């Protein structure tokens, strides 16, 4: 599967207009170089080889950990990735934690108050949350908290000169909350219906008839069953998280993989596009395998095949 996808990505890049040489040479220098020299450069770089040969070279290089070089700066893609990945991970993990905790909490609260005012308010908030573009939400938050209230700094990952995680946490708060909240609505909806589902089960009636206090029935007996599918859902939200962080990183000028990706797409920096695409697919595939395993572990009715 991964091989097929890597081939497709390579094919896709192949179809992009222009090649590496076109981008390596600045336009003003192009006049000084003869077409023959250009051809020589191409064959030195192996760009003349047949398509399949280049694909095999590329894939074997990658297996060795050589991901190619940025066409603009000449820096190894692996270096670029290791520079940007921590920032993205920091943001994604924070957003994932926020959306999971808040989403399941609000969902359960909503389910326990079904039909009452709290449930309705949360449902309406969820509807707005699904419909508002992520970046617009980010922009509104920037205007509110950065410009008007001036509580938080704008953009970037740290103020120059600051060190350590806690000194730059103020930069993380806003993007993480925006990305987290924008994913909360979906989780909330899901955990609400999951909780309602589990509260309708027979064992809840049994628990009640045994005289267990209502809060214990809800929180111990109901919640445990309801949260299993919600936990599994985390895996399915990974593609969304990757997509969301691409947009949010752009809004907040967060120096992560997403921002690098957008810049690479704009300047057709193919090695970077390839790598980001490849890794994001890898993450999604690994996550879906983990989801299968987790489901099998948590739910005895499901068997791994």
């Amino acid at each position: 599967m991964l091989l097929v996808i890597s081939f497709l990505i390579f094919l896709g890049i192949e179809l992009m207009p222009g090649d590496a040489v076109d981008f390596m040479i600045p336009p003003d220098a192009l006049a000084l170089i003869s077409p023959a020299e250009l051809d020589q450069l191409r064959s030195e770089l192996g760009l003349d080889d047949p398509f399949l040969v280049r694909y095999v070279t590329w894939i074997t290089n990658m297996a060795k950990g050589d991901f190619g070089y940025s066409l603009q700066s000449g820096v190894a893609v692996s270096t670029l990735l290791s520079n940007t990945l921590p920032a993205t991970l920091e943001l994604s993990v924070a957003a994932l934690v926020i959306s999971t905790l808040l989403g399941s909490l609000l969902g359960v609260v909503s389910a326990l108050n079904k039909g009452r005012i709290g449930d309705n308010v949360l449902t309406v908030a969820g509807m707005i949350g699904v419909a508002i573009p992520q970046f617009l939400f980010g922009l509104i938050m920037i205007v509110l908290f950065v410009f008007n209230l001036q509580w938080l700094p704008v953009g970037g990952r740290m103020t120059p000169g600051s060190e350590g995680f806690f000194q730059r946490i103020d930069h993380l708060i806003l993007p993480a909350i925006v990305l987290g909240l924008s994913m909360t609505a979906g989780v909330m909806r899901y955990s609400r219906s999951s909780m309602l589902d589990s509260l309708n089960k027979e064992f809840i009636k049994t628990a009640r008839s045994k005289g267990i206090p209502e809060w214990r029935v809800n929180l111990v007996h109901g919640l445990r069953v309801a949260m299993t599918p919600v936990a599994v859902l985390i895996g399915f939200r990974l593609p969304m998280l990757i997509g969301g962080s691409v947009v949010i990183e752009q809004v907040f000028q967060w120096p992560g993989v997403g921002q690098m990706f957008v810049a690479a797409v704009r300047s057709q920096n193919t090695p970077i596009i390839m790598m980001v695409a490849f890794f994001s697919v890898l993450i999604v595939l690994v996550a879906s395998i983990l989801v299968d395993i987790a489901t099998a572990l948590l739910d005895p009715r499901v068997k791994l095949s």
Partner: protein
Amino acid sequence: MGSKTLQRKMDKLLALEEQGKLQSSNTSRSLRKLMANPLAIIGLVLFVVMFLACMGAPLISTYGPNAIDLRNRLSPPGEGHLLGTDQIGRDIFTRILYGGRISIFVGLGSALGAALIGVSLGTYAGYRRGMLDATVMKVSEIMMSFPQIILVSILVTIVGQSLWNLLLIFILTGWPSMYRMARSQMLSIREQEYIQALQAFGIGGFTISFKHMLPNAIGPIFVNITLSTAMFILQEAALSFLGLGVPLEQATWGNILNVAQDLNILRNAWWVWLPVGLVITIFVMAINFIGDGLRDAADPTQVG
């Protein structure tokens, strides 16, 4: 929900049906349920109003979408310009109307195009199973393992930025989910007895799947089309915000928002980006309301 009121309702309906005042056909019942859903009505009204306003843009606004008024650059909302002007003096209100045309077109067109491909493949492959189904399934699996925005950005780089290319890309990346939905519907329908009867009559696969099975799956398909329309509109906005959508010269909702990347405009000229953002949100919400209403009307098992 009191069961007594429900019973009384049912009795009333039965009485009406007996008098022949109500058609008991499935579609009209769904329609009635849709019309009884206040959120769906609100959604429908908002959708129609905004749709008509955008389509009738030249009637509503006297400005052109790209007409430049250099004396009034970045002027706040007020007389002359209802929602103010942007940094080169174009009327924001007019641009929102004209931008809506493109944005709605992209959203609706992509959803319909994706549905056309996905549903027709899913209908036939879901009925036939076998090689065709396995192959298309694998292809859709591969496409769906890309995070949407990454796949779309790569395709944008390959084919270049233009309105039609964007539409094409959305269709290309959107059909797999439609395919899966249609296929799973077909898989459950094909187990029903009337399909066996049709097969016994020697009716061809195309006729069975498209004429006799597809109509029974039309509810979920409509729901999916509405919800995808909303999704594509949001995606167009996000892509245009990143500068990868429809070329900037053309007004779309996303392109109008694009200028909000400029911190100065973001800070001092709210009328440039906030109204269009609200318009997108409200429009998407309206479509979602319609979609949810359709789902509740078409599928009685899902409540809440």
